């Protein structure tokens, strides 16, 4: 399989919920999806097409709070970046941990650095910060950029 093929399959399966796609190179792809469909897209990639979940990167951009889920199809030698944008006020998204156990830690980490809530996460607790960490302080939010 190639990057453009999986992008076409995603478009066919999810239609208008695929908001933007880009084939960056033969080994890198980018798709932006409706956040409500993250579990379905993760299932499509991880269960149906055998992608491996590498990790997710959370960051604060001009558009809002973003999560980039990095999936790789090892035998086809390419990475697919699945991007979602969430609002800064009350950001939440469905957890993919019930589907992919390897996402447990990173969702907890994104929760503590950006304050994104993961619905249905089996253990929604901070991963790295100590008990005395200030509640509601998220170091990777733009307002704390220069701290």
């Amino acid at each position: 399989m190639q990057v453009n093929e999986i992008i076409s399959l995603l478009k066919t399966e999810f239609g208008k919920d695929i908001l933007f796609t880009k084939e960056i190179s033969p080994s890198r792809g980018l798709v932006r999806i409706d956040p409500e469909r993250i579990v379905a897209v993760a299932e499509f990639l991880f269960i149906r097409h055998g992608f491996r979940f590498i990790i997710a990167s959370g960051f604060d951009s001009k558009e809002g709070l973003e999560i980039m889920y990095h999936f790789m199809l090892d035998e086809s030698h390419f990475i697919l970046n699945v991007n979602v944008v969430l609002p800064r006020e009350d950001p939440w998204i469905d957890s993919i941990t019930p589907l992919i156990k390897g996402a447990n830690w990173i969702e907890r980490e994104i929760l503590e650095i950006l304050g994104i809530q993961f619905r249905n996460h089996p253990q929604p607790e901070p991963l790295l910060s100590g008990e005395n960490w200030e509640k509601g302080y998220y170091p990777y939010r733009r307002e704390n950029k220069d701290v």
Partner: protein
Amino acid sequence: MRKTVIPIGPYHPLQEEPELFKLYCDGETVTDIEWETGYNHRGIEKLSESKTFDQVFFLVERICGICSTSHPFAFANAVEEIGAVEIPLRAKYIRTIIGELERIHSHLLWVGLAGHFLGYNTVYMWAWKYREPVLDLFELITGNRNSYAMFKIGGVRRDIPNENIAGITRILNELKPKLDLIKGAVMDDPVLHMRLKGVGVLTRQDVIDFCAVGPTSRASGVPGDIRRDDPYAAYGLVDWDVITAEEGDVFAKAEVRILEMYESVRIIEQCLEGLRKEQEGDIETKVKDIPPGMGNGHHEAPRGEVFHFVLTDGSNSPVRHKVRAPSYTNIATFKKSCIGQTISDATISLAAVDPCYCCTERMVVLYDAWTGKPLMNTRELVRKSQEKTEMLRKKIYH
């Protein structure tokens, strides 16, 4: 049911770095495991945003003392992907040599530690003894036993002069029989077969579910290896095999690591041959600036895939820099590999993934307790270190 909790850590003689494992036991059997992390959290991703691209190399190199070239490797791959930088062939060979030497020394370190955990101290002594010549090679090539500062955007910082290749080859040739010795001591030992087979088993499905990487996944029959699956540096130019095993137990993990060292020697030998054909000094492509974009860089470190995600905006610093070390996914497999084991098997099952909590060791100044005078300060240590490097150079190259 009454349960006993056995804590390992956060500071424990078994572990070099702090991390707390709580083993919930029913009698001798481990029924559940929980862990606490964050004792060594240094905010490196956040710190990276305040550094220039050149400075970030020195920062990520200090994420881990053992795989100190893996993070710069992955970071360079990510940034060079954004800038579409093609590095000279000679630099590709040198990067690959450094990456593979690191694999050998890291696997030898693990074999030694695993032997020590099992009370098989002969293997521990041998593995660590024969790891020393590999570290000497690092010192010769880079000037340091660890934290080599070899990588930069567009290439490497130091060349390997062609006249030194013979010396490096000689050390590698001397290493091969030592690897045979260690291979025999582990793989032909009936006690180790009985002790390690069927212990800490991870099935193929467990590996897929937990997204485990590196020898941890390859020992369970999942043949993922970034060097082959997304070739970079010189990995696509040399001939080598991905080592896998099917059993998923601790013995299989040991087997994979030991056999991988032979593949590393094969790769290094071919890279050294490649170096002879390339012009000396051609080790860098000049890069003026990095355009806005995103890069996914990864490298197959000794413990598995190191992944770096970098976002840039055209300035000389990353806007976001995400780092994922292999232990981040591998440690989570303990939930499978330790449960149902006895306490004595749980410790080697924990050690089998070669967990690394992203350590760094720091220099300390020692003071005489009686006089209060420093016994050795940084300057003296550096001088002694440089003298030793010079002595090694003379011994191996001349």
